[in-house]
């Protein structure tokens, strides 16, 4: 099982995402932003960080990088893709997911261990969880407030595409407490909190985040059989 992790200029959590892939029992494969090549991986993670320095707008430049020219059609064709934090921002900029991530309500960067509720356990990236399960995972972002038009928000909720919500008040002012969403097919998931920082209680608040990565491994193994 090979899961690619893209490194853009300014990616920061790429080594962490690769570690999480290893913890989940798969092989991380490093993908370079400037290569139009997904190296035949079974799934892709867009990690956290400040790609291209967040210049212009978070994720706005990264979406035009060569690797995205390969990734976007592959994702539309069903390749599992997880975008974490800056990766979520890139997925929105690339129109693989609807909406946008905006400046935190308090206008400050927030690092906090947040409680999340899993609201959709049927996606490729959440199938090892159960609906309603509570997770404790770090959030760390300055522009993490999910925003979308009322119609989009209604549709996301009606179609079960809200994947995780902040339990209690959203610390960043996210619309309807949304912490993560998926596309219609459920293979593309964007998350604002960082599950790759919660894979081992030694270095994180819990190991609750590992499930996102094992879910993909389970789903991919099932698809192969």
């Amino acid at each position: 099982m090979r899961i690619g992790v893209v490194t853009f200029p300014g990616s920061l959590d790429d080594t962490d995402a690769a570690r999480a892939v290893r913890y989940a029992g798969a092989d991380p494969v490093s993908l370079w932003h400037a290569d139009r090549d997904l190296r035949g991986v079974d799934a892709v993670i867009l990690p956290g960080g400040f790609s291209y320095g967040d210049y212009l707008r978070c994720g706005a430049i990264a979406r035009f990088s060569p690797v995205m020219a390969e990734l976007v059609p592959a994702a539309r064709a069903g390749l599992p893709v997880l975008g974490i934090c800056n990766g979520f921002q890139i997925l929105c900029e690339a129109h693989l997911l609807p909406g946008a991530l905006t400046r935190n309500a308090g206008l400050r960067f927030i690092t906090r261990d947040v409680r999340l509720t899993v609201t959709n356990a049927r996606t490729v990236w959440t199938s090892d969880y159960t609906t309603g399960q509570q997770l404790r995972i770090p959030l760390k972002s300055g522009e993490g407030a999910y925003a979308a038009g009322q119609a989009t928000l209604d549709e996301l909720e009606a179609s079960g595409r809200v994947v995780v919500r902040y339990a209690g008040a959203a610390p960043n002012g996210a619309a309807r407490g949304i912490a993560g969403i998926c596309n219609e097919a459920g293979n593309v998931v964007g998350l604002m909190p960082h599950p790759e920082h919660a894979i081992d209680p030694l270095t994180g608040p819990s190991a609750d985040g590992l499930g996102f990565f094992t879910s993909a491994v389970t789903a991919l193994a099932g698809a192969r059989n």
Partner: protein
Amino acid sequence: MSDKDTVEVAAATPELTQPFQELGLTEAEYGKIRQLLGRRPTAAELALYSVMWSEHCSYKSSKVHLRKLAPNEQQSANLLAGIGANAGVVDIGQGYAVTFKIESHNHPSFVEPHQGAATGVGGIVRDILAMGARPVAVMDALRFGPADAHDTARVLPGVVSGISFYGNCLGLPNIGGELAFDPCYAGNPLVNALCVGVMRHEDLKAAVADGPGNKVILFGSRTGPDGVGGASVLASATFGDDGDGRAKAKRPSVQVGDPFMEKLLVECCLELYTKGLIEGIQDLGAAGIACATTELSAGGSGGMRVSLDDIPLRDPNLTPAEILMSESQERMMAVVTPANVDAFLRVCAKWDVEATVIGEVTGDGVLTMTWRGGTVVEIPPGTAADGPVYQRPIARPADLDALQADTPDGLARPKDGLALRETLLALLGSADLADKSWVTAQYDHYVRGNTVLAMPDDGGLLRVDERTQLGIALATDGNGRYCRLDPYLGTQLALSEAYRNVAMTGARPFAVTNCLNFGSPEDPAVMWQLAEAVRGLADGCAALGIPVTGGNVSLYNQTGETAIHPTPVIGVLGVHDDVRRRVGAGFAADGARVVLLGRTREEFGGSAWAHVVHKQLGGHPPAPDLDSERKLAALIGSAASAGLLASAHDLADGGLAIALAESCLRGGRGCRIGLSGDAFTELFSESAARAVISVRPGREEEFAALCAANEVPATVLGVTGGDALVIDGSFEVPLDELARVWTRTLPALFG
């Protein structure tokens, strides 16, 4: 002056008046430069000497004292590079070397808090990078004027946002530091940034330009007009009483940071190191190209020829003097063999880092720079790299006897349980001791995935090797009040506290870095404080058997005649053999025996109680006890590796009362404590070499035996559990009330 002031022109016009005083040089220093060169300096040379001989770069006032910090043979056992290198390097075993250093960015952070603090982080990170290491974490020791002062509301949020912006975007976890307030820092905030890096032994790099014919490459950001004269004009002079107006005029001297470029530069350098493409490397910080070229050539075979026309500029109108003095951020300079130049440039191109060959190493012992067809610099580089050394006059402060005689003995003390309870809450809610989440929540401490402990634990703890679980611990401490009362003892207390904090994680304290923040060296009383602090640090480190590996001196932290409290900030690095055996500060288990380690004396000079409750500073600080610190650290190390401890927390400002409250708050559980003797002294004295720990249930006898074997006095205080901090027969405070008082202070002040 003509913008083409060449060496020939200078030789022919000896009588020309030059603006040496505006550049911060004295008449004697200017005369010395003329004597060294045998002619007047060119405008570019004058600029180069002025920044290289500034207090900030040359340590000309402190050097005679800093020599005392040279480690002895026993302290040097694990030292791979020491004082004088960009940063000290120690061998932590398993083939790993660790480099760490703390540096000030005080003056820029007052003038422009956000960029001043941001570039402070950037600068220290490049120091670590230049040693060959991957930077793995940062810490910040911050001191401001009164928490409720108008200007603190400008400076503090700006400094914190600058550190947050730069460090987070650079991808380095911020694992701890300090936050303190005192009127003495109004107008002179202290922003000290620490960075730590890890490498394999064989990766160690040197700042030398050797091998005639080798190419000199400047890479990273372009050189612009920002930060011109930062080292000489900004960091090496006192701001006037009209601080604000003067500060505004100095704003162009502050640099502007781009953490994204720094991240690219870090990854680019690490790839260059891995591919073996570098012979020597130097970061560009204070004094920019002037410093990098003189230090590289002075450290190597002694000669270098540089073409200033080849330096990529953001502003084509810069003069040679401005090019040399510019402190534009995110730049490095490397020495590369001709055969490796193409490969070097390819790696830079991969990372979108601009790189330009600007000169080459020569064997003639002369640093030569050409510009538009003329030679504008022609000097022996050693004369600029080795600045003047001053033996400044020293005098014990005239007011010190009176200050020491004004002991806190006569201050009104809390008489009953209710008053003790009020005292605890007053201290817990004071800005110095309150919850720091307002600050630390703006920093990413998770990135890179190796942070085992971070604020608010006593020390930061990082995993270095995922297979062996080898790790490093870090803490910084300083106490301006103690040092004002006695800089020798105060510095040893800061050293003791950082040493103790590192030990509390279960790590072995290993090496020391320091940032010496003082007033003007032209004041004999300040120089006495500096000399005493350095002597205290040298003696303290010798007693603890650990070396000072490097550091930084920041002088002129004063407004008019009024200097800050002498504030040496001491960083201690420890080695942790198995980070899975880490110990946190919070009470982690119910029913655990709570034990006080160490001996409590009646010591209130410079205490948080005197400061917060009575706004008083006088008397003598607590007595350091370095032998007991060593024993305490050894005990905690053994107990941690045997798995006996559920928590360990050092006692410092506010004494046992504050330590107990913090252990309750961090662990989310209460405790029931019984005290013998005078409750006020037991709770609030600040005697050194103490800690409060809780023992894993069932391991009490083993732990007691270990205390006896290590000769550490141990007093059983009580047991953890419940939802209140209970002092038997005196008072109790429910946890939610403790939390409310502790957490509300900083948000109420800063929003």
